[in-house]
């Protein structure tokens, strides 16, 4: 019989890891967006670049958790 602390649900660990990654991603995205908007030399590329980053990231994240309930 295994100790109770080893009886951890893998999907619960996954949920915690996904939240940690999500928080990291939000901070990264905010910092990147700040730099693009402040130092982007008033370029029209700045906003589309941020949108592409968000869309691609969310697509990857959605694929990552697909199959888990």
């Amino acid at each position: 019989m295994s100790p109770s602390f080893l009886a951890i649900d893998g999907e619960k660990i996954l949920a915690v890891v996904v939240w940690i990654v999500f928080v990291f991603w939000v901070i990264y995205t905010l910092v990147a967006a700040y730099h693009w908007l402040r130092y982007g030399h008033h370029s029209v590329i700045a906003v589309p670049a941020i949108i592409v980053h968000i869309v691609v990231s969310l697509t990857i994240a959605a694929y990552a958790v697909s199959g888990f309930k």
Partner: protein
Amino acid sequence: MEEFDLEEGEKILLSVRKHWFVFFCELLPFALAAWLPLYLPTLFSALMAASPNSAQLLVDFSFANPWVRLAYSAWWFVLWILAFNIFTQYFLNMWIITNRRIVSIHQWGFFSRQVTSFLLSHVQDVTTTIDGFFATLIHFGTVRAETAGESAPNFYMTGIPDPTGIRDLIMNEIAELHGDRTPSSSV
């Protein structure tokens, strides 16, 4: 500009980033790193055919397995963040040539940004280097501006498009600053 203020009578002549091919070469390893793992299921299938004993271990390695999708996605996510960093640096880093100075704006990371001004009046010699097959073919290279004094550092613009045109532009502006006293140039 956000990074620096133009002096009275100063005007921007050219803003230049690295050549698109340099950017492409920086992104290529990320594209390969994202693409190559897609062949792992094929490789594992071949291993299964060669070694039936490993079939049980490898049978679950397919995109139908959510843990495999998670592992792939984690890998692609890391690659995407790194590639987006490269794109951000490519776009935010630039050189601005005015009629009085060259300004280098360099983003080392998200929390380290360097803006350097290099007065054209201090320039003694401007050298261009176009080195390599692709650099010669699509015309990108390095411009190096040297100063008269040993205390001031040389100024490099690496991987820029049309280095000879930019050198000529700098030389013309220096000639205007110095009147008829034109500095030397070399290729």
